[in-house]
């Protein structure tokens, strides 16, 4: 809902509830004489207090509980929590490659499902001038059907690995309760390969036919950066402005601040300020590690959008997501082709007192979990830093820059462009806490 007011030198535009994002929220922007006085992304999603009620629970219950933080990226929360707890109880080094591959497969499903939903149903309508994917489908039904089919492929991967796509039940600390059913894997492979070809086409469509606003910013990009693979489940955490730390030491370089207008804590790089996590950060820091199928598209995409890597423009998160979807489809097909169902699905885990932290790359960026366990395996402390709360300060900085650039535009145009900008980050407000309000005062 948009509300605008105007006085002699000051305009106010409000959007109380931003559409096509996960969770509820809005923004607040005040401009006086064309200058931004204040830009706030307001997150008032009801606090659900996970870090408190996880205390006292058995470590083996955590992946299922943590999944419920977010219905759109539950597998990401499961992967971060499993790996943090595998470190806490001292078995992380013993997880064999076959189980790691299954964790990657699960993550591929999560990225495909989440990225396709966001690109085609939530974000693309902004670029093509529709209020929703539903309206877009009236004029572009075949394209929307292709997207829904790809989304379904992502969900099917999650169903094979985890039984269902929302709050999957397969993953546990130490691996998976059972291996994926080989017959179902075989059945999925042709759809996966067809989906890969289709996504390559759609990626070029997004690169060539969609116009991206010129909006270059001096971003600090932060993402996992393993040596020899595109980031998903492993690797140190790195920045384009110089830091590179082990996952355990993330809090040496970033800190969270609590501000009055948000139930999400704002994260900043210590001594510097806002930073950017997500597909664009991953791509800018790891472009050379993309799967060959995505790597061969990259130069063509760069040519079409008129910019070589790095892309310091948050609107280019859309083609970045598309390239990552190609990567995930190709990687999932590789994993399924090499799948050996005779390998054990999990290793034995026993309670132990310890501390473990792990970060994985959720669809929206670095998702960091840290746990302490006691000798009986009960959780004594939990800390979760989701991607959207890390992006929140960056989104506000972007809003400020955009509003100043567009201060001569009418309210409706400015408002739409601000919403589109916020959607560049695919904000997942349930994760960060929830409730985003968009108010513009000028």
């Amino acid at each position, binding site marked *: 809902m948009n509300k605008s007011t105007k006085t002699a030198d000051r305009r106010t535009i409000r959007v109380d*509830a931003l*559409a*096509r994002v*996960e*969770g*509820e929220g809005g923004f607040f922007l005040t401009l006086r004489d064309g200058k931004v006085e204040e830009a706030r992304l307001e997150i008032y*999603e*009801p*606090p*659900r*207090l*996970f*870090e*408190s*009620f996880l*205390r006292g*629970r*058995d470590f083996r*219950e955590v992946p*299922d*509980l943590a999944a*419920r*933080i*977010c*219905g*759109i990226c*539950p597998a990401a929360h499961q992967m971060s929590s499993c790996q943090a707890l595998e470190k806490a109880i001292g078995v992380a080094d013993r997880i064999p490659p076959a189980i790691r591959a299954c964790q990657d497969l699960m993550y591929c499903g999560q990225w495909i499902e989440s990225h396709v*939903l966001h690109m085609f*149903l*939530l974000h693309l*309508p902004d670029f093509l001038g529709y*209020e*929703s*994917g*539903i*309206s877009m*489908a009236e004029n572009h*039904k075949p394209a929307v059907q292709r997207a*829904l*089919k790809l*989304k*379904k492929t992502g*969900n099917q991967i999650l169903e094979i690995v985890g*039984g*269902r796509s*929302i*709050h999957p*039940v*397969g993953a546990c600390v130490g691996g*998976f*309760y*059972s291996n994926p059913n080989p017959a179902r894997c075989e059945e999925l492979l042709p759809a996966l390969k067809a989906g890969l070809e289709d996504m390559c086409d759609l990626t070029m469509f997004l690169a060539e036919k969609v116009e991206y606003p010129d909006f270059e910013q001096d971003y600090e990009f932060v993402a996992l950066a393993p040596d020899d693979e595109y980031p998903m489940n492993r690797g140190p955490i790195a920045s384009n402005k110089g830091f590179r730390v082990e996952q355990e030491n993330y809090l040496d370089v970033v800190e969270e601040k*609590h*501000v*009055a207008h948000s*139930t999400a*804590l704002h994260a900043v790089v210590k001594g510097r300020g806002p930073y950017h996590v997500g597909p664009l950060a991953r791509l800018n820091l790891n472009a050379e590690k993309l799967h060959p199928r995505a790597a061969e598209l990259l130069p063509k995409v760069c040519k079409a959008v008129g910019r070589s890597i790095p892309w310091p423009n948050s609107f280019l998160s859309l083609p970045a997501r598309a390239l990552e979807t190609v990567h995930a489809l190709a990687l999932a097909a590789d994993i399924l082709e090499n799948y050996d169902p005779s390998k054990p699905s999990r290793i034995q885990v026993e309670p132990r007192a310890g501390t473990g932290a792990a970060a994985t790359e959720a669809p929206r960026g670095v998702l960091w979990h840290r746990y302490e366990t006691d000798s009986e395996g009960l959780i004594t402390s939990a800390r979760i830093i989701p991607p959207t709360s890390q992006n929140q300060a960056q989104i506000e900085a972007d809003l400020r820059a955009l509003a100043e650039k567009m201060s001569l535009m009418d309210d409706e145009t400015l408002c739409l462009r601000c*919403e589109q900008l916020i959607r560049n980050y695919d904000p997942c407000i*349930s994760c960060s806490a*929830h409730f985003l309000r968009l108010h513009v005062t000028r």
Partner: protein
Amino acid sequence: MADSTEQPPDGKPKLAVYKFSGCDGCQLSMLNLEDDLLDLVQAVEVAYFLEARRRELPPPYDIGLVEGSISTPEEEERIFQIRRDCRFLIAIGACATSGGIQALRNWADVEEYTRLVYPNPEYIKALETSTPIAAHVFVDFELRGCPINRNQLLEVVTALLAGRKPVIPTYSLCIECKRLGIPCRLVSSGQPCLGPITQAGCGAICPSMNRACYGCFGPMEMPNIEALGNRFGGLGYTSGETVRMLRSFNGYLEPFKQASDRYEQVDKDG
């Protein structure tokens, strides 16, 4: 019911989807109806669904789907207007039907919980409890699950459009498990399976993946929790462990709540 349903000019019934405290997963179940989604939006006018579209049509609406629990003062107010706006109000998912996982606070001191998460707890407005929608307003139907089964959602919407009662089983998961021919986790491998007291509907996914049911569809109709608790005791599980098993996604829903309180007392008494 169809005769008195108010219809927009094009004859389609209007659907609204609302979110309260929860994870968005149950709303997403609707978007996950990939094969049926475009048909569904042909059959109903999606009049209010913030996660999917920017356009909002004014109330009244024929069907309102509510995801999430009531956990803040603002939500406590908002649900009354929504009840007035919707002819049929359907609570979807464990949060809306039981208070959800965040109802674990109902057994704790919320101020202390808030202090643990937020450095400035005075900025946070949370109710002492997280409660289901039906604790606040009359609800026409409750669809269980954490998350809901998307096919059951389709059944509920279809039934309402056709003017009949939704066919949603209230028997135990065991029936579903037996039909699928899955070996019993409790009997054959001694796993602490909540299937015998849990409502069917998920497709027995946990037993089919070699793990015990953890009760995400909540209690079946008339469960015998004590008999299952005795069996768990015989397998060596403590009362404290049984309390944790019952207190998860539907923990605040009777009779799981009552049983967990009883086992907690047993645990304290040693």
